[in-house]
């Protein structure tokens, strides 16, 4: 379970998260929607300790992410994250991109790592592209590779940070299909997204972020279907 308790985060004098509390159960898909700069992406960075927080607490399976003694490298093995920019390692082939972390971090043998990588890449539909360098892939393919790379660590949780925002419109679908497949397989996911319709389809719950706070959280039919707060209504009007 991922639990956020009154999390506060600021960059200098800019308050990005102003006391965010929520929890995500095992197997649950939570979508986070809201305008740019509302703190959605920052929250994901805080969950796996890529960004420090200034107040509150984040617990992942009971481990305090930001406590002094926490081994973040260990913790990150069970929290996969995929970013808006797919961040391929350009000097490695697709297969090597996915093999790297299982080999170096989990200490798998070359053969085991390759097995895992081939399995995950096939899973996201890149089984034919193993020996290719990322530059030869489309954005959608690179993004799916990034998803396979995160999945190769067999994480318990997956965080997705606007993974379709930097893609050409015709490539969005293939990445969303991959996400949908993961949700159907029971992966616990937090999905920061601007794809409202998609969020409505795959999520168990939706959270609406506005100016560093959660304004509404609940099942999609409620938050997207019958929003209560004026901020939510305005936001949905502007994007739908």
């Amino acid at each position: 379970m991922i639990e956020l308790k009154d999390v506060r985060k600021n960059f200098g004098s800019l308050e990005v998260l102003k006391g965010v509390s929520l929890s995500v159960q095992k197997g649950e898909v939570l979508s986070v929607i809201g305008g740019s700069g509302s703190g959605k992406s920052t929250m994901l960075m805080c969950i796996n300790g890529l960004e420090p927080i200034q107040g509150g607490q984040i617990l992942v399976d009971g481990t305090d992410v930001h406590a002094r003694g926490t081994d973040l490298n260990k913790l990150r093995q069970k929290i996969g994250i995929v970013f808006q920019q797919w961040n391929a390692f350009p000097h490695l082939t697709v297969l090597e991109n996915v093999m790297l972390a299982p080999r170096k971090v989990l200490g798998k043998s070359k053969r085991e790592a390759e097995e895992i990588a081939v399995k995950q890449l096939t899973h996201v539909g890149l089984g034919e592209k193993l020996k290719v360098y990322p530059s030869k892939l489309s954005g959608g393919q690179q993004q799916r590779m990034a998803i396979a790379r995160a999945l190769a660590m067999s994480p318990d949780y997956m965080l997705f940070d606007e993974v379709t925002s930097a893609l050409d419109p015709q490539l969005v679908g293939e990445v969303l299909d991959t996400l949908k497949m993961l949700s159907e397989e029971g992966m616990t996911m937090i999905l920061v997204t601007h794809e409202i319709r998609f969020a409505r389809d795959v999520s168990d719950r939706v959270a609406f972020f506005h100016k560093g706070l959660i304004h509404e959280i609940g099942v999609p039919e409620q938050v997207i279907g019958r929003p209560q707060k004026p901020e939510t209504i305005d936001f949905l009007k502007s994007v739908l």
Partner: protein
Amino acid sequence: MFETSLTWNDVLFLLQGAGTTLTITFWAVLGGTILGMLFGLIRATSPWWVNAPIGFVLDILRSVPLLIQFVLANSFKSILKLQVSAFTVGCVVLALYTAAYCAEIVRGGILAVPPTTRRAARSLGMTYTQDLTNIVFPMALRVALPSWIGLTLGVMKDTALVLWIGIVELLRASQVIVTRIQEPLFVLSIAGLIYFLMSFPIARLGARLEKRWREDD
């Protein structure tokens, strides 16, 4: 009909000089690259209070003409009565000079690796060191290689300046012959040709590596 007083012995003398040029270049580039990578890494990753003093020293090495550095270092060697050859002094001075340039090349290469890529590496559970060795260095190498090849070729030509501290390398050897046979154009053309033949393989090697990497990424 073209006639010359240049003898085979002279050609041999020139080639010996070329050997010295290559040897000095080898040590200077080897030492300079190792030191340069170290300093470059420190420059790219350290807080300002470590960075500033190192940057200052490297700036001095880069901005004082090499000729002055050779002569000063050689004089200090004599004043301090150090038992080292002029050859060693030449290699050390040139290695430090190379290190100063190499450090900037390495620093630039490291800083060219996008922070988001490093963040992705760390998010997979890689440690700081794993990120450096598996992601940052290989990516930085591809950025830095062309400048590094340029630096190596430059250093090879800069070795000519060690003639000022009494080392006979290719240029000094050709001067000696010119003085004797009075055919400066011919002798210097041959010396120039030898410099070219030494540089060309290095330049080609660099170009080949670059091409291979470009095909990858």
